[in-house]
């Protein structure tokens, strides 16, 4: 709640007020329904088609509205809020350009199964289809990137639709749901009665798995000599981290966590092998390739994880556990498919599974690889290395911060060198790989956890894709620590051009970028710059000691590459080791 909130009323009192049946406008129905869904904070940007909604919000104190400076900032913030808290993120935008500016954010959330309710205004129902001012068919545009969408044609449907939207967004495989509200619908009055139940005939996610399939898994674990667990975002999203920890404790099966799974299992654990895939560890990739049993827990065999799909895990019997049946068998042939909530499945399995001695030699092999082939980089005394900066962040925060990243090299270095121990502490655009996500998502994460340390790690490229949201940090005193790993180029593109396109560096030079310290100061945010290790330590310490938002620019070596690397078309054990050699 912001500083202007005059009185604190109890939730029960408020709830009683909201629940009262009353004839109110569509806009008021929307606000009350959001409150009844437990919404505390929405991110948005007003405009013509949502004027009634914003009018209803005038002086409205029951939840907070954060006015971003771009709709893309609003939806990424809502996304960061949802990923950090596990609750449904909500954003509001107007029709036409307001709605289309949300498209990247909706696709980002869809690819990573993030629960969002996205509210857009539209032109009045009488104008729909006439190419009216600021009209866009946003339900049509977003059909492939939403879990579901609604165009509200009658205000009477609004309470049901909002309740369904929250239900659909937050259950099964989570995802964004869009509600498009024409202007006249937001103005029209109707009797509002809270909706208490949901009845959607075509939607009934399978949570509890088939018992016979579980028995097969127990049997497979007992027989396996080289078992591996591949844990993904599903572990985090279903709150299965404790059940997973128990599962590993019982079975002592080596585990690798995907980018979205990082934090779902403590990185300090002996059996944790790091991340698999394109920039994964030697250990994780070789373990998968040699495994005779691969247990996928809520991961979707993304191409960045599998590499060349034909040669992926060639010796393994594959168990795939996922809430979304369509993921099973989509990319990798599965021997034991299990549809269900990962947490429920693991809790059931934990009653049956046992450690198998047959895998002892394998466990020793994993330990050997881990010791021999850790992530490595060439450090330097005179140049600041980006990996060193991430290690600095890790050490000074004991791996306990919420870290959001943008996309590119710095994202991979965070995944490699920041040691996550808690679920929901890494917030990153894994599936869509959205530049511009890192900074605004941190604003959302910080709104969800005002008292936790939130670090947003960005490159100098991505930072400029949503830098306008510095205003939000300044004006609301949102104390995100904004790290810019500045190598003056689009680093990941440069890396591919260096390694695969014969050093033909095409359009990657970011000369002309602003002075980030001055940019921060222009918004009223403290700005610091470091070019040496000593400056880096000092600047970072100062940032941590500063109560409000701070931008810390680390000017780093542009020649650094992310290693190891599996180039496209290779199996994941064909790794270019680079500095990790």
């Amino acid at each position, binding site marked *: 709640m912001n500083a202007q909130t005059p009185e604190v009323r109890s939730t029960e009192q408020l709830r009683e007020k909201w629940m009262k049946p009353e004839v109110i406008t569509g806009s008021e129905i929307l606000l009350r329904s959001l409150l009844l869904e437990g919404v505390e904070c929405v991110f948005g940007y007003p405009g013509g088609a949502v004027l009634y909604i914003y009018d209803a919000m005038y002086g409205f104190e029951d939840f907070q509205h954060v006015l971003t400076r771009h709709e893309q900032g609003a939806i990424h913030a809502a996304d960061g809020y949802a990923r950090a808290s596990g609750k449904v993120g909500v954003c509001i935008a107007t029709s036409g350009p307001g709605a289309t500016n949300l498209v990247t954010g909706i696709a980002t959330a869809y690819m990573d199964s993030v629960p969002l309710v996205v509210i857009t205004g539209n032109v009045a129902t009488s104008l729909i289809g006439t190419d009216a001012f600021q009209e866009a068919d946003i339900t*049509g545009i977003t059909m492939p990137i939403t879990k579901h969408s609604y165009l509200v044609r009658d205000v009477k449907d609004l309470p049901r639709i909002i309740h369904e939207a929250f239900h659909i967004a937050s259950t099964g495989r989570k995802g964004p749901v869009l509600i498009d509200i024409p202007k006249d619908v937001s103005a029209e009055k109707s009797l509002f009665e809270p909706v208490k139940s949901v009845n959607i005939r075509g939607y009934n996610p399978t949570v509890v798995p088939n018992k016979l399939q579980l028995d097969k898994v127990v049997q497979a674990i007992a027989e396996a000599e080289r078992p591996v667990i591949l844990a993904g975002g599903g572990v985090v999203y279903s709150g299965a981290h404790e059940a997973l920890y128990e599962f590993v404790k019982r079975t002592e099966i080596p585990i690798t966590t995907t980018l979205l799974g990082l934090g779902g299992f403590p990185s300090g654990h002996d059996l944790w092998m790091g991340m698999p895939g394109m920039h994964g560890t030697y250990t994780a990739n070789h373990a998968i390739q040699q495994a005779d049993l691969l247990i996928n827990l809520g991961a979707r065999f993304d191409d960045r994880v599998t590499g060349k799909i034909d040669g992926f895990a060639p010796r393994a019997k594959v168990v795939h556990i996922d809430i979304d*049946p369509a993921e099973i068998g*989509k990319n990798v042939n599965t021997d034991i498919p299990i549809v269900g909530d990962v947490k429920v499945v693991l809790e059931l399995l934990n009653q049956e599974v046992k450690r198998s001695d047959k895998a002892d030699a394998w466990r020793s092999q994993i330990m050997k690889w881990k010791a021999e082939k850790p992530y490595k980089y060439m450090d330097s005394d005179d140049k600041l290395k980006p990996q060193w900066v991430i290690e600095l962040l890790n050490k000074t925060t004991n791996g306990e911060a919420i870290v959001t990243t943008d996309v590119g090299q710095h994202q991979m270095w965070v995944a490699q060198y920041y040691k996550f121990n808690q679920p929901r502490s890494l917030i990153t655009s894994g599936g869509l790989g959205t530049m511009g996500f890192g900074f605004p998502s941190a604003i959302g994460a910080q709104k969800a956890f005002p008292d936790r340390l939130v670090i947003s790690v960005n490159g100098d490229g991505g930072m400029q894709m949503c830098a306008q949201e510095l205003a939000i940090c300044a004006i609301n005193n949102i104390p995100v620590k904004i790290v810019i790993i500045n190598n003056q180029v689009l680093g990941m593109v440069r890396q591919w051009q260096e390694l695969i396109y014969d050093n033909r560096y095409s359009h990657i030079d970011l000369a002309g970028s602003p002075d980030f310290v001055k940019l921060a100061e222009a918004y009223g945010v403290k700005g610091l710059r470091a070019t040496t290790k000593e400056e880096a330590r000092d600047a970072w310490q100062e940032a941590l000691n500063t109560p409000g938002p701070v931008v810390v620019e680390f000017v780093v070596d542009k020649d650094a590459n992310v290693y190891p690397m599996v180039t496209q078309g290779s199996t994941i054990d064909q790794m270019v080791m680079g500095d990790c050699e």
Partner: protein
Amino acid sequence: MMTTRHTISVLVNDQPGVLQRVSGLFGRRGFNIESITVGQSEEQGLSRMIIVTLGDDNTLEQIEKQLYKLIDVIKVVNLSSKPMVARELALIKVNAGASERPEIMGVVETFRASVVDIGSNSLMVQVIGDTEKIDAMIELMKPYGIRELSRTGATAMIRG
């Protein structure tokens, strides 16, 4: 794996945009649509789509699973996995001078098709049957000169 023709029945909510959701899904996932028909079903508020598609068993499995992910999809049945009846209807407007008419009428009769309109120089033939029958009818009409052809795509049901 072998690519075969499948006929799928999809029971959907009769909602605006539902055809777009289903056809869009086929488009973006690279599933083939050979024909699609939509109409009312036995239950009010629900429509039935019959989609004929080409693909191997894996593709078919994905099609079914992806369809089920659409909230407006209630039930998906692979009709061609069981004995089924599939029918489509075609209207063929064929050149027919007075001298050719008896000959065409003969073909129409043999096919248990019917002539539904007679113009000064043409006949409109309506034929109902499975895809092969319609294909055959079209082949037989070709020599006379087909002016216009319109066919519905298959609608289908499991026997029994």
